[in-house]
């Protein structure tokens, strides 16, 4: 029989010490609150744990030696409710959702590609209705499940700035289409010749290129928590689809930016290698009282707290809330309930459309550079910048485009290894592998695409057949794609051809028009978003504008589960940043005056 240990009560129990939990725990401790931070993994010491062993494609990419171990738990998946959902049993390359494990979370191994999402994303639903009419998407995506976020981009700007200062982001700013009250705190990384060519061409065409935004420090930096940050050494073993951790601390994550400072205040105590399995609630008060977790020996700990913050990764947060009975489970047949509603992933049922051309600019795939730097980006076709009026097939959103980032951000032999076919046998095929790390020309490709639109058939629920290591149900993901992007691709891609012409590309090829299809996702990525959304109403959302649970008012949450809609720029690295600080403000208000909060951040 395992022992039950009750820990001393704290003001706030923080679940997960990744990007969300690490910042919330640190900020609250710095602001004088008693915090208990719990994580299922270890506290990696980047000065020791990565420097001699990360240069190992097999161990890092396939055996995932730094990441979440699947025997602990995984996710089951299907496309339709009348299918049996199967568990993801191992990591592959196309399915690399290497969940984080330990303090710093998945940001140990991300590419570090950042970027605020533009103002339009926060009011997608009402902006589309007012500009194009309330039925704009009804033929393309009849079951669209779109709502506005409960706050605006302008309201988020100061929180973005706080996050950017804590992270030490490199760049200038994002130009006039994504206005920022302050520039990024660190300068951009050196520009590649290809990036410079893109910058020159887009400027000449009247667009507003800006250096790609990076979470890798471009210079030594003392951040807002007093943590000294080292600059990037550009060793190239950096990017995500291998998933390399950073041995210098230049890659921003809460282990290298925050938690040490939080612990240093004396107000933050850590429980590591500890697997959280319940938020305990009092059914008569309707409030959470404590959190239960297993330690590495299998003992149960109970950690009481006045408020609870979950920064667990998307599916993991859903799983804990569902098991803990926090929120009404979504039913896609009746479209009732909000917990598990709106979870979606980037992708399209139809085909896309790309325009590409060749430039005689050589490059190497030698491991050099980092996962996010060197290139330039334009927001001029993103969001609703291009008029969607009169589209042959309606769709919303538009792409943010970048060209020229470092090409040697990770080795790529394993991505060939998982691509065996009848044609990858023998000397003729072997010859195609010769010197493929060295190139004498570049293909530049640009593509128009829409934003991810959640639909009412999407579902997160608890799996009835599969269990985690401790016997609790796994999360089951029912996901489809839709055709929102198809019309957008056909609207925008032709507008991109002049950029390639201006760059001096030859062999410019415009792909065939995008067409509707019925392609469905065959995997999920770490950037699944939605499922426990923030929103103005509890009918379709789990959290209000302060990231406070409608159902259990002393539970707060931040992360991609809270994404109300899909966003033009991957939210899971940058747009979730301000969420953590909004939740901090909400928690402080709650602790001062325990109630359901009103008003706006």
């Amino acid at each position: 029989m395992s022992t039950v240990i009750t820990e001393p009560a704290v003001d706030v129990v923080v679940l997960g010490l990744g990007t969300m939990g690490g910042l919330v725990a640190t900020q609250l401790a710095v602001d004088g609150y008693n915090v208990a931070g719990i994580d299922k993994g270890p506290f990696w010491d980047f000065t020791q744990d990565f420097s001699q062993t990360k240069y190992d494609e097999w161990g890092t990419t396939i055996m995932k030696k730094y990441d979440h171990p699947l025997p602990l738990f995984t996710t089951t998946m299907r496309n339709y409710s009348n299918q049996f959902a199967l568990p993801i049993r191992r990591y592959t390359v196309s399915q690399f959702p290497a969940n984080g494990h330990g303090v710093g979370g998945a940001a140990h191994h991300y590419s570090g590609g950042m970027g605020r999402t533009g103002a339009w994303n926060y009011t997608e639903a009402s902006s589309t209705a007012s500009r194009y009419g309330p039925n704009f998407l009804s033929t393309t995506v009849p079951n669209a499940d779109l709502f506005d976020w409960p706050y605006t981009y302008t309201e988020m700007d100061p929180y973005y700035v706080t996050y950017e200062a804590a992270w030490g982001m490199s760049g200038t700013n994002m130009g006039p289409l994504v206005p920022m009250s302050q520039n990024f705190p660190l300068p951009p990384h050196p520009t590649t010749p290809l990036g410079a060519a893109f910058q020159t061409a887009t400027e000449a065409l009247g667009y507003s290129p800006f250096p790609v935004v990076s979470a890798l420090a471009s210079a030594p930096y003392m951040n807002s928590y007093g943590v000294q940050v080292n600059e990037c050494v550009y060793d190239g073993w950096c990017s995500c689809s291998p998933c390399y951790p950073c041995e210098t601390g230049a890659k921003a994550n809460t282990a290298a930016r925050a938690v040490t400072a939080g612990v240093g205040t004396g107000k933050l105590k850590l429980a590591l290698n500890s697997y959280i399995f319940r938020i305990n609630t009092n059914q008569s008060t309707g409030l959470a009282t404590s959190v239960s977790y297993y330690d590495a020996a299998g003992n149960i700990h109970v950690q009481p707290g006045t408020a609870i913050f979950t920064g667990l990764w998307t599916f993991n947060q859903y799983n804990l809330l569902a098991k803990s009975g926090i929120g009404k489970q979504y039913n896609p047949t009746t479209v009732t309930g909000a917990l598990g509603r709106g979870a979606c992933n980037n992708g399209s049922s139809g085909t896309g459309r790309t325009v590409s051309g060749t430039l005689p600019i050589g490059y190497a795939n030698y491991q050099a550079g980092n996962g996010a730097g060197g290139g330039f980006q334009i927001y001029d076709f993103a969001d609703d910048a291009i008029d969607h009026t009169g589209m042959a097939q309606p769709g919303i959103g538009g792409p943010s485009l970048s060209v020229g980032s470092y090409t040697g951000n990770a080795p790529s032999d394993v991505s060939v290894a998982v691509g065996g076919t009848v044609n990858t046998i023998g000397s003729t095929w072997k010859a195609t592998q010769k010197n493929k790390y060295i190139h004498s020309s570049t293909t530049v490709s640009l593509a128009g695409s829409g934003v991810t639109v959640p639909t009412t058939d999407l579902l997160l629920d608890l799996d009835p057949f599969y269990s985690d290591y401790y016997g609790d149900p796994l999360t089951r993901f029912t996901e489809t794609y839709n055709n929102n992007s198809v019309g957008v691709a056909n609207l925008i891609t032709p507008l991109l051809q002049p950029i390639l012409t201006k760059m001096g590309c030859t062999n410019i090829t415009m792909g065939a028009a995008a067409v509707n299809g019925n392609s469905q996702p065959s995997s999920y990525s770490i950037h699944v978003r939605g499922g426990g959304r923030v929103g103005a109403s509890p009918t379709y959302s789990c959290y209000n504008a302060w990231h406070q649970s409608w159902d259990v008012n002393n539970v707060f949450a931040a992360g991609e589960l809270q994404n109300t809609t899909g966003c033009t720029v991957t939210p899971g690295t940058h747009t979730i940043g301000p969420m953590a600080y909004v939740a901090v403000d909400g928690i402080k208000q709650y602790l001062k005056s325990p109630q359901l909060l009103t008003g706006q951040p």
Partner: protein
Amino acid sequence: MAETSAKPMEPAKDRRSFLKIGGGVVVGAAVAGVATIAYYNGVVGSNNSSSSSTVESLSSQLANTQSQLSDTQSSLSNAQSTIGALNSQLSDTQSSLSNTQSSLSSAQSSLSAANSQNAGLNSQLSQTQASLTSANGQVSSLQSAVTSANGQISTLQGQVSSANAAITSVQAQANTLQASVDNFTAYQTLGPNEVTLINAIASTFIPTDSNGPGGTQAGCSYFIDGQLSGKYGVSGHMYMQGPFIFHDLTTAVTPTETPRIFTAANGQVYTVGTNTTFSAGTMKTVPDNGMRYQYNFNLRYFWHLGLQALETYANKAYGGNFENLTSANQVKCLQDLANNVPTQAAFNDILPADFFYELFFMVYSGFTMDPMYGGNKGMVGWLLTGNNGVNMGNFYGEGYTTKQIMLMTNPPILKPVSLGQYQKGSP
């Protein structure tokens, strides 16, 4: 003409023979007429005492003679005309003769010049002959130099041959030494038949050829053995709880396991309801998908069953063990697996395409992953792809930094560095 209308007369002596030039016939006729007149004048002088019959006869003869005179005069006129023509021809002839003489003179002059040239050419010929003789002499000495050089080449070739033999011998010794210091000179898990088969598979995917050593030489079998002996083999990195239901099923699925009914603290109940049949089977996947492996045994056993099934199929379809097939049939046999030619039931209940995925995945990884795992021996995989491994630009003193390399448009070929070398810190 006169001679055709001339009356018959006593034939005279033909005196045309000395004047047979041009119209000799006409002249001859005229001369004959004159001669006849001269004969007749003598006859008339000696016969004065003749009678009138003689006068008649003479008058008749005179008429005839006058007629003949007329003819002769006509002939004379013709002859004179002919003489004129002949004179003209003579003149032409003389002119031609004159030209001919002139040409002859030129020709003589040319001949003279030619003779002079001939004399010069003869002189040159003479010199050339002398040079030729000299050249022949040089050729001769060069030929003997060539012969001598050929002899040296022969000797050198012999030396190269010996050197090559020595290199081969030393290489063999080095391989033996390499093997003796190698971590993976023993197989921890694979049986000898499996090793033979895996080497044949590795060499089929990646042959040794002009682009370098192939899968066997690179040690793919050692890489695979190492993985099968560790976490990969026991599927320690995988979620291995049941139920085990297959991927990409298009027919209805009714699990035999009883679904759990989970009740959350707020009373929320999670259940599939009374219907536990999933009419649309399981999700469509792509080969590189973590949902594909739904076998209820670990990867070591998966390989054991798959290799066994492959040998059975090779014998059935191509008449022998895989490792003994022709190269062409080895390729076809692997392609048959990718195309699910053998049924799953005939393949130890493993989907052949799933085993094909794993074979290529592990062979290519064995070829290109860090040598510390037993494959990519001598970094031959990286030498093929151009992967620099952990060479940050200056491991061999090349003098580059990663910051330079990341901006290069004309990158140099960097010699690869393994993690072991990197940790050691020097070549």
